[in-house]
């Protein structure tokens, strides 16, 4: 029986030395779900997101993509790594990530940034990659800047190029790691608008965010992490309007000020 979940991360545990950052966090996304991970800094939400594509190696847990488990084996240091590098690369190509600091490749133009994984990872021809890059760059509204280098783009433009790069992979899940936290306040809106449009297309997204209005209006589920565990989860309206736990009440009182 096929799994109803696109991405199912089960019981993810992560230690940095003796500090337990994640103490068994599970998140499962069905097709079209937009899951917002919220929590104060140090709650482990970014670490959790980075465990999903193994940029961070968890110490325990399971990751399934469309029912297929990522084969993991423990290393000498106790953290898990992929037992089959080729399987990990395939997984990563199906899970696209958008970073807080954009992480565009500085020596490539905006267009080349979008094309690069298409040709080197997905094996598209240059012609196909150019066409696809053009499509997604115009979708995020930066096609007029396609020949510019990242350093010559504004933060908002850079992040939209990064979203185009992720979209162009036509992934099954998109991970967003605080995509607006490094932006000047006046640039946050343009990126959130693009993310909202992406969500409305029915794409599956897991978003670590501090933007409560985005979580409230766009997400299908909000997960509140605190000290490495899921303190509370539920539909956004309910969870954000009537927080049950004291921690979430305190968190919301501080962020909504």
């Amino acid at each position, binding site marked *: 029986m096929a799994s109803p979940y696109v991405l199912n991360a089960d019981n993810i545990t992560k230690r940095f030395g003796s500090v337990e950052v994640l103490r068994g966090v599970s998140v499962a996304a069905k097709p079209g779900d937009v899951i917002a991970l919220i929590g104060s800094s140090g709650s482990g939400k970014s670490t959790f997101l980075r465990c999903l594509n193994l940029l961070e190696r968890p110490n325990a847990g399971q990751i399934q993509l469309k029912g297929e488990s990522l084969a993991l084996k423990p290393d000498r240091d106790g953290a898990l790594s992929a037992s089959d590098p080729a399987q990990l690369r395939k997984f*990563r190509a199906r*899970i696209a990530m958008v970073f807080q600091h954009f*992480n565009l490749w*500085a020596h490539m133009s905006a267009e080349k940034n979008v094309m690069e994984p298409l040709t080197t990872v997905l094996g598209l021809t240059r012609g196909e990659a150019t066409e696809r890059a053009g499509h997604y760059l115009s979708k995020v509204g930066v096609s007029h800047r396609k020949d510019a*280098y990242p350093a010559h783009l504004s933060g908002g433009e850079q992040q939209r190029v990064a979203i185009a790069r992720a979209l162009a992979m036509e992934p099954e899940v998109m991970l967003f790691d605080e995509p607006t936290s490094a932006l000047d306040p006046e640039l946050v809106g343009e990126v959130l608008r693009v993310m909202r449009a992406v969500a409305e297309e029915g794409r599956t997204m897991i978003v670590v965010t501090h933007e409560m209005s985005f979580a409230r209006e766009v997400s299908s589920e909000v997960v509140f992490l605190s000290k490495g565990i899921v303190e509370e989860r539920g539909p956004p309206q309910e969870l954000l309007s009537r927080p049950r736990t004291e921690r979430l009440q305190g968190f919301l009182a501080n962020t909504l000020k």
Partner: protein
Amino acid sequence: MIDWSIIAGSLPDFLAGLKVTLGLLAISLATGLLLSVPLAVARVSSNPWVSRPVWLYTYVIRGTPLLVQLFIVYYGFAQIDFVRHSALWDLFKNAWFCAWFAFALNTTAYTTEIIAGALKATPHGEIEAARSVGMSSFSLYARILLPSALRRALPQYGNEAVGMMHATAIASTVTLVDLTRVARDVYANHLVTVEAFGTVAIFYFVLTFALVGLFKVAEHYGLRHLRAQTERSTVAISGAEMKTK
């Protein structure tokens, strides 16, 4: 007074010496660049069995003068029976080969460190981005790390190339008739300092500026992506200043 007839008379010799200097520089730099790219990748490897030997090599070579290295190759290797009685002797009895060998060994060490430094300075986020889309380690190096590091290494590598050009003068100590050797011969024959060494200094000076210019052009294209785009904004600012005056 400068004796122009001596300079004019020895000009063909200087031009022949120029050929030797440029030839030696070209083959040494080419070998150095070719070897230092894989060595730099090894140098930044997380596996100590791969990175330590390269570290040791660059440490030893950078810790000794090029002149000493050349003497060891040219005079020292000839003392080893094994070298004398093997096919290697055909190579190491040749001054050209010895100079090329020592210079390549030397510039490879410096260039390796330059490229390794640039590789290490790659922003970590760019590596994570490459990993996150599923790039293999080979693609990561071939498409992201090396193209970006080699560009950023250009200014430092330009210095290394100019330094190496000046260092080729050392080849004159092992019978090669390069620019410096020609100058010494002119001095020995005519006992004139300015005509001999002044002329060769001008040759080196012109060569240096040609090389520096070449690298300026390379940097202009290679480092476009890091340059602040000021052309338009400076015009706008200077326009604004004009008005306030």
